[in-house]
């Protein structure tokens, strides 16, 4: 006990010397204009943020469930860490870049480190900077975590940590600034309501870059080039993950209205929620039917992907379409994701969980659908739906290529075969269970 207290004291001492690099003051001496509306809208966004953060275990479960047991610890760990790192990096740099004043000719923003740089009034529709940050950081973490599925089973843990820091601290905030920070895409009239492009396509195309630079897992493509299935090890977990994501999406889309007080806001939020639900359902059904038609058996994993596809597809336009249009958007997304998975197999790109078809392709579809059904300007929608994915793909391609150059990207073949859990972490996900060590 003594030793413990000594340690404690020593640590406390060290800590006290560390001067806070950035101080926030929550001043409340503003005259209270509309405290009730202020409370409600902030509460609403807070709930939204909590739901979006809840999407993290959703991703973690889907991705680990869709991969093999020997890599489960590694994927879980990556999911845990992209959240932790994302929170800190977005706090330090990302938030300031995304919502600060334009610098470098409007290429990015800068509002200082931490949260302090942005103030708020007390009124309905006005958010405390802290609340705003919470909501935004949850979105940043979502973009980051999408990639872990696409690069599963072969990317080094340390490489992933670096990637996480770069995407949440730099890449995501910059393209985010273009649109949501008031940058040039926003100026053009590009409409991406809750982030089909800004969040999902960024993640999906980063994942594509990773999958391409890494190359496929050993055994994914036979000597004849035919894709081989590498079945997921725990579909109940994966299904749970998708359900959780569905639930979390009620934070993602409806709360992106950013206010609920005022009949317009209230009505919009509820329309968005229903549209989100309808698109998810339609996506799931269509993906099931498409696979059933092509492969003669209904495939659970594709139906799960279809639900996510519908959710991603509706994200950019859920505020601007009718219920029936939402169903159509989901229908298209459900078909799209099925074809996307087959396309990647054709192109010999190995994306173990379908991160690109779901978030990349359906993200783009969401942007386009905002033009087709949502009445948004065609040019702006096409520009945004091309530029943002490109930005993410190119920057991440460069990053992964640099890591590859330094041999810091991919684990050794021996380790890959034995599993990253033993190789990188010396830990098994299911200690005591008997696993077929080879199939």
């Amino acid at each position, binding site marked *: 006990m003594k030793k413990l207290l000594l340690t404690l004291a020593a640590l406390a001492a060290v800590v006290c010397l560390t001067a806070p690099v950035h101080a926030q003051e929550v001043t409340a001496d503003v005259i209270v204009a509309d405290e009730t509306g202020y409370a409600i809208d902030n509460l609403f966004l807070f709930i939204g943020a909590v739901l979006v953060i809840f999407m993290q275990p959703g991703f973690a479960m889907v991705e680990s469930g869709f991969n093999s047991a020997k890599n489960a610890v590694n994927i879980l760990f990556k999911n845990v860490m992209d959240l932790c790192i994302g929170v800190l990096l977005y706090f330090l740099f990302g938030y300031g870049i995304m919502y600060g004043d334009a610098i470098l000719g409007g290429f990015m923003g800068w509002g200082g480190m931490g949260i302090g740089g942005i103030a708020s009034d007390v009124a309905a529709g006005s958010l405390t900077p802290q609340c705003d940050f919470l909501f935004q950081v949850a979105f940043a973490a979502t973009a980051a975590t999408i990639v872990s599925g696409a690069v599963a089973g072969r990317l080094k843990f340390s490489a992933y940590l670096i990637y996480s820091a770069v995407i949440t601290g730099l890449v995501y905030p910059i393209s985010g600034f273009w649109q949501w920070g008031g940058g040039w895409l926003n100026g053009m009239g590009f409409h991406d309501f809750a982030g089909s492009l800004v969040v999902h396509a960024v993640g999906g195309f980063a994942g594509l870059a990773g999958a391409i630079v890494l190359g496929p897992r050993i055994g994914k493509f036979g000597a004849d080039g035919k894709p081989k*299935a590498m*079945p997921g090890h725990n579909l109940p977990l994966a299904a749970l993950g998708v359900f959780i994501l569905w639930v979390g999406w009620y934070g993602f889309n409806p709360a992106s209205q950013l206010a609920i007080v005022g009949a317009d806001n209230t009505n919009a939020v509820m329309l968005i929620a229903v549209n989100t639900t309808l698109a998810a359902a339609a996506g799931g059904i269509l993906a099931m039917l498409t*696979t059933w038609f092509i492969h003669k058996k209904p495939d659970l*994993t*594709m139906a799960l992907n279809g639900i996510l596809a519908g959710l991603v597809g509706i994200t950019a336009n859920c505020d601007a379409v009718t219920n029936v249009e939402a169903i159509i958007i989901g229908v298209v997304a459900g078909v799209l994701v099925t074809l996307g998975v087959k396309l990647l197999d054709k192109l010999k790109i190995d994306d173990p969980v379908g991160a690109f078809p779901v978030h990349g392709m359906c993200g783009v579809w969401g942007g386009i659908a905002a033009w087709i059904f949502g009445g948004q300007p065609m040019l702006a929608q096409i520009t945004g739906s091309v530029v943002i994915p490109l930005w993410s793909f190119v920057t991440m391609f460069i990053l992964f290529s640099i890591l590859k150059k330094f041999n810091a990207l991919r684990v050794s073949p021996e380790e890959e075969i034995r599993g990253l859990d033993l190789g990188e972490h010396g830990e098994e996900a299911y200690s005591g269970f008997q696993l*077929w060590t080879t199939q």
Partner: protein
Amino acid sequence: MKLIIAYIQPDKLTAVKQALYEKEVYKMSVTNALGCGQQKGYHETYRGADVEVNLLKKVRIEIAVNSKFVEPTVEAIIKGARSGKIGDGKIFIQSLDECIRIRTGEKGEDAIG
């Protein structure tokens, strides 16, 4: 004494056990196995990609018996496991030099049953 090893279809285990009981063979040991035989395996798809399953799930039964029990044991296994379809399995018979009951130290034929 003989050691009988049988590979059978998993869903026949109950029937085989039943048939063995009828012949008064009460002792056996069972393990899970994967088998590769005439039954060529099958192709499945997972997310649209091919899964070639050529190691099929089988159950391995190991039974040590006295010589005079060999015949009835084999009969019982066949009775319980045969469906007439490819994949029904095989029985292997080996000689067994010695058998010891750990609890009592008994040896040989006395120890087997």
